[in-house]
């Protein structure tokens, strides 16, 4: 039986992978490495897994992933670099733009210095923790300013006390397009933007493949080095698509048969 190691945190273990583990346990030998209870000693490690699947993005998770990559030949999905880039908004925007994928204008500014674009959304710089988007919308003189509670927390205090804000140009879009990528396979959905309806699943529907989004999504996962990902796109009034977010740890329960699709993909990718 194939041996799969799952590197995960408590939040994902308790809330996101019940169905996935139920399926995976029927087809593979599963071992769990949980961030909050794993003792990582760099001088005392032995792994006999055929593949590791990373379903979290905390510091210990990334450190363990780096160790596995550098010290073993065991495949790891997603790789540490991909996870790191995916939660560093500024860096992934930079790389995606350089690769030719349309992303909204963005900048990192010290507090008090506004970006050059008028309509913007302030997002957290590092999207590493497990909490949800909590937007505050202000409309003044016809301009839209959206800020995320997490971004403001980063600036105001706590451990991650920054003096900068990440600004992304706000794209007004009727729909938000969600593309899941599992290996070469893509799954397309659309839903009302979260600012219109915070209950994103209420309006979510499966849609036919959009060729333009397919090209952007495949290039994006190649650029950021992700095997499993989800991507959010918005469409401007001129009809142009913009990639606004990329996530290395998507909730695959939202895809029909998602847990089985992921499980089968991992087994297929395991060390032969």
């Amino acid at each position: 039986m194939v041996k799969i190691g799952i590197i995960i945190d408590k939040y994902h273990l308790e809330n996101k992978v019940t169905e996935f583990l139920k399926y995976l346990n029927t087809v593979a030998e599963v071992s769990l490495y949980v961030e909050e209870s794993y003792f990582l000693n760099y001088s005392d490690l032995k792994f006999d897994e055929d593949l590791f699947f990373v379903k979290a993005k905390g510091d210990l998770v990334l450190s363990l992933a780096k160790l596995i990559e550098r010290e073993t030949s065991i495949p790891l999905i997603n790789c540490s670099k991909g996870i790191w880039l995916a939660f560093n908004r500024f860096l992934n925007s930079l790389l995606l733009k350089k690769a030719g994928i349309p992303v909204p204008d963005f900048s990192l500014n010290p507090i008090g210095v506004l970006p050059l674009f008028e309509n913007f959304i302030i997002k957290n710089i590092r999207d590493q923790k497990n909490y949800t988007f909590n937007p505050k919308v202000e409309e003044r003189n016809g301009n839209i300013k959206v800020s995320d509670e997490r971004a403001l927390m980063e600036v105001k205090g706590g451990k991650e006390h920054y003096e900068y804000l990440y600004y992304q140009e706000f794209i007004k879009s009727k729909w938000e397009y969600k593309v899941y990528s599992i290996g070469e396979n893509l799954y397309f959905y659309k839903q009302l933007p979260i600012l219109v309806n915070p209950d994103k699943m209420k309006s979510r529907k499966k849609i036919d493949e959009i060729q333009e989004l397919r090209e952007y999504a495949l290039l994006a996962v190649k650029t950021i080095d992700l095997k499993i990902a989800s991507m959010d796109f918005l469409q401007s009034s001129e009809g142009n698509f913009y990639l606004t977010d990329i996530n290395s740890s998507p909730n695959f329960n939202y895809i029909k048969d998602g847990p089985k699709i992921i499980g089968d993909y991992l087994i297929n990718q395991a060390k032969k």
Partner: protein
Amino acid sequence: MKIGILSKRTGNFTGKMKNYFEEKGLKVKIYTYKNLVLNDSLLENDFYILKSKKLFFLYAGYYLEAHNIPVIPHTEISFQNKNRIEAHFLLKQAGLLSPQIILGTAKTLKKHLKHSDFPLILKPLMSSGSKGIKIINSLKQINAQEEEVLYLEKIIVGTHYLAYFIGDDICVFEKKPFENEHANVKEIELPNDIKNILIKWKEKYNLLFGHLDMVREDNTGKLFIVDPGTFPEFSNWNCENDAVSLVCNQILNHFKRTKNTIKNNK
């Protein structure tokens, strides 16, 4: 030629570099937290000096390199020196020894560590130098918020050294354990093994200058690298030539070489 310097401060080594370049007729602008905005306005300079490894200066470095503006030292190597896990692998790949690493939440560490594992040293994961480090002698001293992951290193008991290099010039000092670069140090004759380590490190990653903090273990005589750095203040440098002019000339020569290589490849 226009040079940008990414630095926390405008004085100290940064200020001296600015003066040195300006005396040579070059234009220099220092970017600190107060005036650094990461957008196209940064593209006005020919190259940048990455003096600080703080997150936003690293972001600026990545931004500039993505726009084909040279950054010295390279952003990625500066980031890898700043992140202790990355630094561990850099040292390992160069064939150098570094202390044993342990990570976990406070609860996990308390469950797995034994009395004989102490003393350990607690360090911030993203840091270099002695800032934020703490010696941990017992389980009682391990305290953190529930989900916080702590990074610990096994303490190497022995003689501590601060070793600077700029090009082929090397200055080595004995220093008190866990003190920063600016503390009082004692100059020593350069031991061959330290010289070889510095050459290996410099050549492996094409470094123009930098420093390594190392400890010669009492029991084995082996040298362990406890802290690498890409851009120290060189506050204890006392070799024949002045550190500022050596560093600035290394940077200018490197930029000219890079520019010529780009020209020849076109």
